[in-house]
């Protein structure tokens, strides 16, 4: 089988398995998987910036929150229908990421991490500052009636799962297309050697800005979908923890692999789930996982597999 054939079959198989699980998974895991799929879209976006382009951001929660609040506030305060509100949310993610990129991409490395962290922190504090509108930490619940789009009601478990799967499938396909496209190759080139890429005629700033905006689009889509599917909007999603989570997912699953973010989100979700059944010290699990990963498996699950056996893995 050609590499392209293998890649297509693998990704279709993952999607088919997730569709199959819709019919057989016990309710508890069914509900978990819907959440994991939305979080995986967020992590995929993170991976486009970090894994493929080499931009280690500590501020992606800002883009997720832009999607979440872009959708939530337009429904809650402006009374928009859910459809336009969703689109506003995902575009808000891309716009905030692009705007932040214009400033933050003037820096690199450690400075870039701190700048993104600071902007995200300022965003979080801004949400708190406007508690009158955003309800701050406590957040608000979007009523079921306001969330349906022309008869499409996302509040049932089944609909929620299938909608999350649909979003995940589109995100996966776009991600796959992106990394095999010209832009995807140049993103990797910038990550590997920025100066060389410049002297091949590529503008590193523009490529990184594009990658960050696409990454923000994914984060915004995930945030918008979260508000729409699960109906809750709160400032907790804008905290530093939500910038660290996708980093953790991507490191665990494998940075620079298309399926890594999903695998990492799935594994981490269940690791925390199992750990919180045993102890309420689940942050300890996150902390230990970060240290162990960065020490012993910096390439993550799929990254290590690709290095040893599956060189065709995108």
């Amino acid at each position, binding site marked *: 089988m050609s590499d392209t054939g293998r890649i297509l079959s693998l990704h279709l198989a993952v999607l088919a398995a997730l569709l199959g699980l819709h019919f057989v998974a016990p309710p508890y895991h069914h509900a978990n998987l819907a959440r994991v799929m939305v979080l995986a879209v967020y992590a995929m976006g993170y991976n486009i910036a970090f894994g493929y382009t080499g931009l*280690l951001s*500590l501020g992606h929660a800002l883009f997720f929150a832009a999607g979440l609040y872009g959708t939530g506030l337009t429904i809650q305060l402006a009374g928009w229908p859910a459809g336009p509100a969703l689109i506003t949310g995902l575009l808000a993610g891309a716009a905030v990421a692009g705007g932040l990129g214009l*400033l*933050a991409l*003037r*820096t690199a*490395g*450690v*400075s870039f*991490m*701190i*700048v993104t962290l*600071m*902007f995200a*922190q*300022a965003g979080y*504090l*801004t949400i*708190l*500052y406007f508690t009158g509108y955003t309800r701050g930490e406590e957040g608000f619940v979007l009523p079921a009636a306001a969330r349906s789009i022309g008869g499409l009601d996302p509040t049932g478990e089944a609909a929620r799962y299938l909608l999350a799967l649909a979003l995940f499938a589109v995100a996966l396909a776009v991600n796959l297309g992106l990394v095999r496209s010209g832009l995807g190759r140049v993103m990797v080139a910038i990550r590997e050697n920025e100066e060389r890429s410049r002297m091949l005629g590529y503008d590193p700033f523009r490529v990184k800005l594009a990658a960050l905006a696409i990454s923000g689009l994914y984060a915004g889509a995930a945030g918008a979908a979260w508000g729409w599917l699960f109906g809750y909007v709160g400032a907790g999603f804008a905290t530093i923890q939500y910038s*660290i989570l996708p*980093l953790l997912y991507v*490191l665990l699953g494998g940075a620079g692999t298309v399926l890594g973010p999903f695998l990492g989100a799935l594994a981490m979700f269940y690791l925390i789930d199992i750990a919180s059944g045993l102890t309420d*010290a689940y*942050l*300890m699990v*996150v*902390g*230990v*996982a*970060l*240290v162990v*990963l*960065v*020490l012993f498996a*910096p390439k993550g699950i799929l990254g290590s597999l690709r290095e040893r056996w599956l060189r065709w893995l995108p």
Partner: protein
Amino acid sequence: MSFGPYLLLAVLEGLVSAAVLALTAVGLGLVFGVMRVVNVAHGAFFMLGAVIAWMVADALPGPPALGFAAALVVAPLAVAALAAAVDFGVLKRLGYDPDATIVATIGVLYIVEQAALSLFGPDARPVQAPFNLRLQLPWFGYSGYKLAVVAAAVVVLLAVWLVLSRSRAGLVMRATQIDGETARAFGIDTDRVYAGVFALGAGLAALAAVLVVPIQQAHYLMGGDPLLLSFIVVIIGGLGSLRGTVIAALLIGVSEGVVSVFFSPTLAKILATLLVALVLVFRPQGLFGRRAA
């Protein structure tokens, strides 16, 4: 109270936060300057210092001054030892790669915070000040202990400065900072220097926390603000410059005291974080640093 004394009070409060902040930030800046490591767990080390201080003071019977004095010795040493272990067990193995060490210290932050929550509990706990002196000014009385904190911070900062600029240890540190490879070639054990610097940085944070704990109670989440403010101070002061760090700590500490009197603290924090981000973008050498050619 009229405006003048009110402002004086704000400035005094600001001086106290500036003193504590300077100690904490110098620790963070030292680690970054010599090791090029951004220690996200710095705030956690600060918190740990406060928590250990409470534990020591709580365990020792007798006058509060005795417990406090013991805490002043034990907490920084314990935290420094932990930091040296983190350096040896984690950071060194990562080859001090900037990205990887940030991720790892985020992990350490979570581990320390969770450990403190599990062992120490979610409540804030007070430590008694070693003495209860009240300085009576014409307009209001002021805590003598707070002034002692400022004096102690000045003494410690002077000591740090002397060590860095005059002693052999300081020379070795600067040599390692400028060029680790060459320092190694000249027989400097850079592994020990790194472990020592990381321990010293964490110890300074812990010391600052012990000083602050009679004023502000010990709590497992108390490390967040010092971390953020230390970042701000180190960046504004110019990464790796001791003098700039101290000046920036004064500026931020005093203006925070004054600003929070007039603005909502949230708005002040928003403006401060945005300021730091913009300084990094447009003046990466800091407000007081000079641009390298």
